[in-house]
């Protein structure tokens, strides 16, 4: 019932009745605020403050259809930046450009494939971010501002773009296979404004007080209808991922890895990975050998290995390194991306 298609339908075909509700609820809010001068909202100040907590990110891409830029949200005062997990991050250092034009290098702390987000870290630049401990759930009908570097319009010390919008629905992004492409299948805020443009993902959705209420998601298009969805991931979803990543359950310090005497090797499992030609070659399976453990466990050509025992694999090199810490006799779990699906595979030797 709550399929993506219907959400879109309501956006485009039934917009009249939705808008009426929205206006009605806004009028009530506006009058409430007008009674108390201390709560009169200054959009300019709210947006200006929020813009200082949104950064421009530059990384891999630039080839047809893949932008090499996106947006990020500073989420604390110790240099952590939240963004969408995408091919832009497939570089050793992600370039961060702050609101005042500073250029910083960030490393990927960890990522959460299910929620398609990642956390980056820049060292000691005195960045000031949103306070994630402030509970900020948004409700349907609420007005919001979207702050992002959509279309890469802003460069250097230019401000990210601001858009106004209303949360039209809070609904699971249940996707029908082959219809639209999204790994994320959880709850989203559907927005009435064209937020989800190239470069916008990872941008901030803030309420009228400037509290972070969501993160703008990746571009999603209904392949059949050709309609783009504008949505954001709610903060509770985002925060759960961020907590997981920051508590270290999704990533590991490679330098601390200790190789075992008789480790796993890709060739022994029966897979060939694509050649290691980049600084961070994504660990795509090139071939699966006949009769191998890999084939038996269900690995296929073109699978992209994301996690090994729930820890992030960011490149072919790191996969090899991580495998080298597991004894050949032990089994392990892989999370692979196959097309638009995430598949968990138990690899038994």
């Amino acid at each position: 019932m709550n399929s993506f298609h219907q959400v879109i339908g309501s956006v485009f075909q039934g917009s009249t009745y939705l808008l009426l509700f929205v206006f009605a609820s806004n009028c009530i809010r506006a009058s409430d605020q007008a009674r108390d001068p201390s709560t009169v909202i200054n959009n300019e100040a709210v947006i200006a403050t929020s813009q200082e907590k949104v950064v421009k990110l530059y990384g891999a891409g630039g080839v047809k259809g893949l932008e090499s830029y996106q947006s990020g949200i500073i989420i604390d005062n110790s240099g952590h930046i939240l963004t969408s997990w995408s091919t832009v991050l497939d570089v050793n250092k992600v370039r961060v450009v702050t609101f005042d034009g500073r250029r910083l290098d960030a490393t990927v702390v960890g990522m959460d494939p299910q929620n398609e987000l990642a956390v980056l870290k820049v060292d000691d630049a005195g960045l000031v971010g949103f306070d994630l401990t402030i509970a900020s759930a948004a409700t349907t009908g609420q007005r919001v501002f979207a702050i992002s570097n959509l279309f890469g319009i802003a460069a250097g010390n230019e401000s990210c773009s601001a858009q106004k919008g209303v949360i039209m629905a809070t609904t699971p992004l249940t996707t029908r296979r082959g219809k639209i492409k999204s790994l994320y299948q959880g709850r989203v805020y559907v927005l009435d404004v064209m937020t989800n443009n190239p470069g916008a993902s990872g941008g901030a959705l803030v309420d009228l007080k400037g509290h972070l209420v969501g993160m703008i998601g990746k571009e999603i298009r209904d392949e059949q209808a050709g309609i783009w969805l504008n949505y954001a991931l709610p903060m509770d979803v985002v925060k759960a991922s961020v907590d997981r990543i920051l508590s270290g359950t999704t990533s590991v310090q490679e330098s601390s890895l200790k190789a075992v005497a008789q480790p796993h090797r890709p060739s022994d499992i029966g897979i060939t990975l694509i050649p290691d030609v980049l600084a961070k070659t994504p660990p795509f399976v090139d071939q699966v050998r006949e009769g191998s453990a890999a084939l038996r466990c269900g690995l296929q050509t073109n699978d992209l290995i994301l996690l090994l025992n729930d820890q992030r694999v960011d490149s072919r090199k790191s996969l090899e390194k991580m495998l080298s810490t597991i004894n050949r006799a032990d089994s392990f779990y892989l999370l692979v991306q196959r097309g638009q699906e995430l598949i968990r595979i138990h690899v038994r030797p």
Partner: protein
Amino acid sequence: METTNTKTISSRRMNRADVSWIFLGMVSAWTSLNPSLLAQEREAPTPSPVVLAAQQQRIESMRKASRATVAVYGTDGQGGGSGVCISADGYVLTNFHVSSPFGHRMRCGLNDGKMYESVVAGIDPTGDLAVLKMVGRDDFPVAEIGNSDEVRIGQWCFAAGNPFVLATNLQPTITYGLISGVRRYQYPSGTILEYSDCIQTDAAINPGNSGGPLFNMRGELIGINGRCSFEKRGRVNVGVGYAISIKQAMNFLWQLKSGRVVDHATLGFTVATDTNGKVTVSNILESSDAFRRGIHYGDEILKLGDREISTTNQLKNILGIYPDQWRIPIRYRNDDGIVDTFVRLQNLHLPSELEEIIKGESPQKGPPPQRKPGNPEIPPPDEKADSLKQNKVAKTDALADLYVEKRGYSNYYFNRFELDRILSLRSNQGNWTESSESWKISGEVPRENLTVEIMLSDTTLAFRMGDKSETVHPRQGWPQWIKQRSSIGLAMGMRIWQEWNRRGPRLMGDAIYLGRNPIVGREGLYDVTRITVSDFDVLVYTSPDTGLIEVIEIFSDNQTDPVELYFDKYEPIDGRASPKWIRLVYGLETQFLVSINSIQIQDGQGGKDL
């Protein structure tokens, strides 16, 4: 009733139509079938007066703004875009890309439901602006001009216009939004057209909105909508539209009213960001005005116009809002310290380049944008075209007089019109036209206690200051003196001043109205006329209010500073307005200041060639 509906629906799969029915059901239940709720509504406190006042102001702003919003169509009623009327005599600002498919004639509709015959005045292909002139009234509704420098991200704004050519009843569509970004620079896309220092908004800007106005919530005009980011999503709004700032449009307005093909400018140097993040000169033409003002390779540019520079982008951005030939303030730093000066902007394109662009955009190239066929809500084009034709008959002849074709102009008629306007102002200053050509001007340089005498006649210009004296031909051979920064420039300038007042610019040489430019050290903008006399060019700056000459510049070539005469304190001598003070300047350096004591016109000796 609600219950019934719900039951019906729960018995089968809900579809879109059902959703609408539920809604209608709820509305009717709310409004008519539930008096208790209505009663509650009545008892509820009335909305705050603040809210009601804000709403009323919004309605008023939009009403006011709508009156000046223009729907632009071809003469056959086809195609379409938007514009905004900015003067009671019917001047309309729009985009070059809106006017160009229509050639020089179009029709403009206002929300009084009437179509007005219109012609193009000037065009700016680089900045994507055009000025049209509507005819038929002298009391057209005018948009109030706002201050685009005060526009801030997060302010509300609204666009008015003719998106998707929906304004069949000539009522503009209003779209409401947020200022998403300011001071944006949008690179040329495929053509020379660039948007610098523009305003970004999420108010829906769609095809057909082009050329139309962007207003702040006070209903003041802050920009001309013109461009959107689309990329892969097709030509509909995706939350990103751009408006040319009204500041830029106003800088170019009189240039555009001149009927010329207007150009943008270059500084004569390029900049790069050095390793310390400073914006420094990376390349400079030694023939440029900037070089003569002391700017050299490696100097750091700190400020241009009224804005600080910290990136190369900013410099590019600011430069784009100025027409060529303007002199704008610049602050730079070299080894000796910080220097504040002015730089004269050079034209960005050769006239031939601009001609190519216009040819490329001419109506033959392709049909103007068509309204979407097959949309039942829009009457078929024929109907509209017919009604337009009926409207047209009476005014056809009036419009024919408003267009004169000439190379380098989009409509030469307006150039003549503006020059006539300037010259008509002279009638208030006393009549010089019947004076003879032989003048004797006496004055002194008080600072150096020198007397000055200038003799003007049809055979020679004689100049004496203290015990130095020079003579020069009255019409040619001036450049060599100007290159030497000679004081006789004063006599040349007075000759131009004399000729302008006696015979008028059209008899002096090829005279062209350029538009309005600033003058160094003076407030406001001044009408500028360029006269090409035998082997030199003259720029004459006149006051738009009085028509009096403020500055005369005589150029030997474009690699040497011109001689500049600044006129001050006009007083009547024999009933004719005459300057009391004249300052002679080369390259911003004052050579001397002359106090004029008398202008004697020697009767019977001159005027033979008249």
